[in-house]
């Protein structure tokens, strides 16, 4: 049985082995938006990671500064390379860059009634029928950046600015914080968006 099982296992093709293998970066943009004619952007200095609602009171939960700073440094470095200048919100920026981070956990339930398997259970050889119930979960973390023209709202009947660029960096979230996974994803997001370059 062990031989057969290990042979079957050997037949099974591989796949993702490390959590960073699941990392993916998605970007999309408004093809009508003229990025090249703009060059000033503003951004907040905090990243919202959660919203707590308690008896109708809403409070934002922010990412710890030490982590947020790494993300801002990566953003600013990439934007500067593309020709953008970071300005204060009061200095009429052409675009606002809004970062957000979310964590989402998916639970799944599985059931396996192992009726055919003979083997060693509880000190005896024989045919046993142990049902297995497992409840598992995985958590993904996402960083979402949007670039929005604050003036575009003037042309909208509902005074809303559509995002002209959206980047979603997603991967399996694990307890340990791996800074290179985050900065690599941010670099990828800008690298795959060459149309953001200004004159």
């Amino acid at each position, binding site marked *: 049985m062990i031989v057969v099982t290990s042979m079957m296992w050997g*037949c099974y*093709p*591989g*796949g*993702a082995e490390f959590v960073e*293998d*699941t*990392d*993916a*970066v*998605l*970007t*999309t*943009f*408004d*093809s009508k938006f003229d990025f090249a004619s703009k060059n000033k952007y503003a951004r907040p200095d905090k990243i919202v990671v959660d919203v707590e609602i308690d008896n109708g009171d809403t409070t934002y939960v922010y990412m710890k500064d030490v982590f947020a700073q790494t993300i801002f440094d990566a953003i600013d470095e990439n934007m500067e390379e593309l020709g953008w200048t970071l300005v204060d919100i009061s200095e009429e920026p052409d675009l606002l860059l809004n970062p957000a981070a979310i964590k989402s956990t998916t639970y799944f339930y599985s059931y396996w009634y192992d009726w055919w398997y003979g083997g060693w259970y509880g000190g005896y050889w024989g045919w046993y029928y142990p049902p297995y119930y497992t409840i598992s979960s*995985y958590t*993904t973390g996402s960083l979402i950046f949007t670039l929005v023209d604050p003036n575009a709202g003037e042309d909208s009947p509902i005074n809303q600015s559509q995002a002209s660029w959206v980047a979603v960096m*997603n*991967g*399996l979230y694990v307890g340990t914080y791996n800074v290179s996974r985050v900065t690599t994803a941010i670099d*990828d997001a800008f690298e*795959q*968006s060459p149309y953001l370059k200004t004159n």
Partner: protein
Amino acid sequence: MKKIFLTFALGLLLIGGLKAQTNSVAAITYSIGFGSGDMGDFISQPSFRGANFDFRKIIAPNIGVGFSIGWNTFYQSQSKDSYTSGNTTLTGKQYRYSNNVPMLASATYFIKPGEKINPFVGLGIGTIYTRRNTDMNLYTLEQEAWNFALQPEVGVLYSLNDQAAITLSGKFNQGFKAGSELTESQSFFTLNIGFAFIK
């Protein structure tokens, strides 16, 4: 006199046994696959995960009819790359799988039946079930097709005795475009080696 007669009868029986008409050939083979066309573009690496079962009923000294079934699993992991569709770009690692199950009615022409080295040619008509998975991030894109298929084959049987032979063959599995999920026809070449049991 009785003794001589018995020996003679036994001798006849033995010869009769050796010269017995071949009724059927059943072969189990290990199969190595090489994708061609669209499948080769999707996965360029050869597959070392495959097996076939072939059965032929001998209806004339040179001709066998029966069926062929098989399973070939192709797998390839792509290093991190960007995929663009319209305004959207996705970057990450991709894991590609193609599972193929050919099921065909087959006819084989044996060129030198009864001889130690017996080359043969054959043709199968039937279907190939193809399931293609493209895994990225935590998601999989699954595309299936039931292709109408032709399977020409050339090979050789090397007799070990009157009941067993070693078989070596090459099959070209040509599946024709089917369904709307896979836009191209799916085809692959297999090299098969194994045992044939002759009855």
